[in-house]
């Protein structure tokens, strides 16, 4: 969750600011399922695959559920794909396989599901809950990652929940950039890095693991849900000594570090406001708008980050930002060259694996 405009986090019935936007259509009654935690305590939810296998069911009941879920997925065909580039049946079936993997304690038993039998399997969720979860996935288009409470990102499995942006595969690349840069410059490796608007903590954690024990990362976010989830993920990967989670908007929690950062990364909200209403249902209806909406042209947060980077980075410091695409990348480089002339150098615009120019990277010029 990120916000540049300084708006305050308002505790609402459901996590996050969705309430204040007319776009959030669903009251999301599914949140009463055990997957949600009470919003007041801000205790992060435990991903399905980490929950204790305290339930049990017969293989034949599991199979009944699976057959039902599969036919529900098949009934989708390509309708989601046609309406908003959502998932088709084959993707949904793969997700179903993963849901099963996460829910059943012993995966090897899943292959025996074909044989009708009374053998019991230990489960991390009640079968009734599985019915519920899959209905949410198909009928409400609840993102799969919220359904299972986690996202596989790089070599990590990160906990995610409503109120936190699900990290995207594109963003994985930023960690590669950092890896390249620090392998060439040991001094950067030992410096302080910042991940602004960390959300689930993905970038911060990815970078911490690159820097190793010598490094230090500060990850900030405005949202208390994000803070809770990111802290949980940091804890799970045993990175408490390297990465520090701070609550606040963009650079606010970094006071006192002016001119000291070795590196700065961010995947800020960058979707132009007018595009929000047309988003894929999984995104538009369920993910926090504050992590998506980048203002009129989608550049609000990005420009704010550029301004801040000029102040916060030390000479030779590295930055990498994710953007909406080619236009953003060009505009950002223009802005830095013209408005921050001399501050930055060695700009690079790097495409994602789909071939879309996605990232802008560069260094803080030696002379401030």
């Amino acid at each position, binding site marked *: 969750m990120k916000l540049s405009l300084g708006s305050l986090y308002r505790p609402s019935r459901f996590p996050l600011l969705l309430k204040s936007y007319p776009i959030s259509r669903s009251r999301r009654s599914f949140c009463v399922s055990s997957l949600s935690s009470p919003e007041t305590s801000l205790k992060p939810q435990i991903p399905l695959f980490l929950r204790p296998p305290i339930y049990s069911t017969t293989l034949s009941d599991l199979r009944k559920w699976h057959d039902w879920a599969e036919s529900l997925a098949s009934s989708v065909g390509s309708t989601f794909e046609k309406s908003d*580039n959502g998932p088709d049946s084959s993707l949904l079936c793969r997700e179903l396989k993963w849901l099963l993997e996460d829910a059943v304690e012993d995966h090897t038993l899943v292959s025996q599901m074909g044989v009708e039998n009374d053998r019991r399997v230990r489960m991390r969720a009640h079968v009734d809950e599985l019915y519920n979860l899959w209905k949410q996935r198909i009928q409400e288009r609840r993102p799969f990652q919220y359904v299972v409470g986690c996202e596989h990102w790089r*070599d990590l499995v990160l906990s995610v929940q409503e109120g936190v942006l699900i990290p995207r595969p594109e963003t994985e690349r930023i960690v590669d950039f950092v890896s390249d840069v620090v392998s060439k410059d040991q001094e950067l490796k030992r410096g302080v890095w910042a991940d602004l608007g960390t959300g689930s903590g993905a970038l911060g954690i990815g970078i911490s693991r690159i820097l190793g024990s010598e490094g230090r990362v500060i990850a900030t976010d405005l949202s208390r849900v994000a803070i809770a989830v990111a802290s949980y993920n940091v804890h799970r990967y045993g990175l408490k000594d390297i990465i520090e989670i701070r609550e606040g908007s963009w650079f606010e929690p970094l006071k006192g570090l002016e001119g000291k950062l070795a590196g700065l990364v961010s995947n800020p909200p960058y979707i132009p406001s007018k595009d929000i209403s047309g988003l894929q249902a999984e995104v538009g209806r369920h*993910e926090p708008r504050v992590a998506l909406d980048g203002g009129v042209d989608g550049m609000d947060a990005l420009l704010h980050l550029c301004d801040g980077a000029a102040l916060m980075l030390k000479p030779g410091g590295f930055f990498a930002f994710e953007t909406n*695409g080619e236009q953003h990348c060009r505009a950002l480089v223009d802005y830095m060259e013209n408005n921050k002339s001399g501050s930055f150098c060695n700009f690079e615009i790097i495409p994602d694996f*789909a071939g879309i120019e996605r990232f802008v990277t560069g260094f803080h010029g030696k002379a401030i």
Partner: protein
Amino acid sequence: MGCSQEGEVEAKKEEKIKLGREKASIASYCAAAVSEEHDSLAPSFARVPLGMVFATQIRFWGSQAAPEQSTSDGLTVDGILASNWTILDENEGDWKSHATAVAQSIHLIKRRLQWRKLIVRLNMLSAELNKPDLWDDPVHAGKISREHGSLQGKMKEVNALEQELLEHIDMIKLAREENDEDLESESVKALLNMRRNSKEKELEALLAGEQDLYSCYIEVQAGAGGTESMDWAAMVMQMYKSWAQRRGYKVTVVEEMPGEIAGIKRATIKVDGDYAFGYAKAEVGVHRLVRISPFDSNKRRHTSFAAVAVTPILGDASAHVQINESDLRIERFRSGGPGGQHANTTESAVRIVHIPTGITATCQNERSQHQNKASAMAVLQSRLDQLEMARQAHLNAQHTQSLTDITWGSQIRSYVLHPYRMVKDLRTNYEVSDPDSVLEGDLDGFILSYLSACLDKDEDGA
């Protein structure tokens, strides 16, 4: 009761072995002295410890310098074979029968190991190892010394078998001379044990190829002919999955491209476990199916094809071909739309193209793009390694073995479901009249008959 008796027998045996050992040490001293002269040609053999050789007669074959072992009265393994003793049932306690069976196994094992070629190769490697500048290229040196070690290991193992066989025979003869029945029956028993174990050793010798021990990828691709062929490709893939699971291998789907209506256009699985490649390599080629097509409303007979490729996954990182990051093009498998924050998808398949060779690899079954990329890289690495091995095999005529050919190969097997039912291997003529069991993964008969046909027909091998 038997305890003290056995102890006595053991003690007698010990004594006789000691006696033998004294003889042997003289023999090996001689051998060392002799081979010293041949050192430039066969340096490796001087280092092979002869250990407890009973033999007193050691001959040298020109540059080969392979000592032919014999019993105290001059009986050699070849001599046993030439005697044409009748092989009786295992239960008949006849030592000649056991000895002949073991000698035959040793002969077969040697043939399977391509014994003569092995000796030539070993000599070549030894010469290479003795070059003073060998370690200037550590990668090459490592390769040479690994291969040398592995070939020498195989050679030692066979020599040890021969030696053991002759020792037992010597012991039996000795026991007879001294009317020592305990020792005789003890030794016959040992011979019988050898006979039983040697069957297993024969099988092991089938999988003595350099890469046989490794895990592998099996890739199945549908031939021309649309849905019917794609369905057949899926059946073939299923056959391998079941086969691998039966053998206790771990199976992971790396990539699967489903057909529009049924089946698969292409799929790759990873088969993890010892000797996965050794067995699976026998399946490389085109598999043909004849049946009444379930997709043909007129119930006509159709012939479809599926091609199978098998790639070893080299266990040793230093053997890998170096891949330059700049030679790679990495693409998202399915894209479209603005991506990034706009899209929520669990589809993170990646395709990697190695630009100089045009070889591609895809992985789509992992849950993150990063992991899909890593898996695809592993597939790409194996394919490039295989390409390199094929290239070197051409340079090194010695080692050319069609088995590791990277091409999809020609038709190897026919599966007929109609008008009669039969699966027949076109290379060995091995056939089975129950196609269902084969399609359920009962492939070992085909694989073993092919592997043995391949190695055993090679007459000059032994």
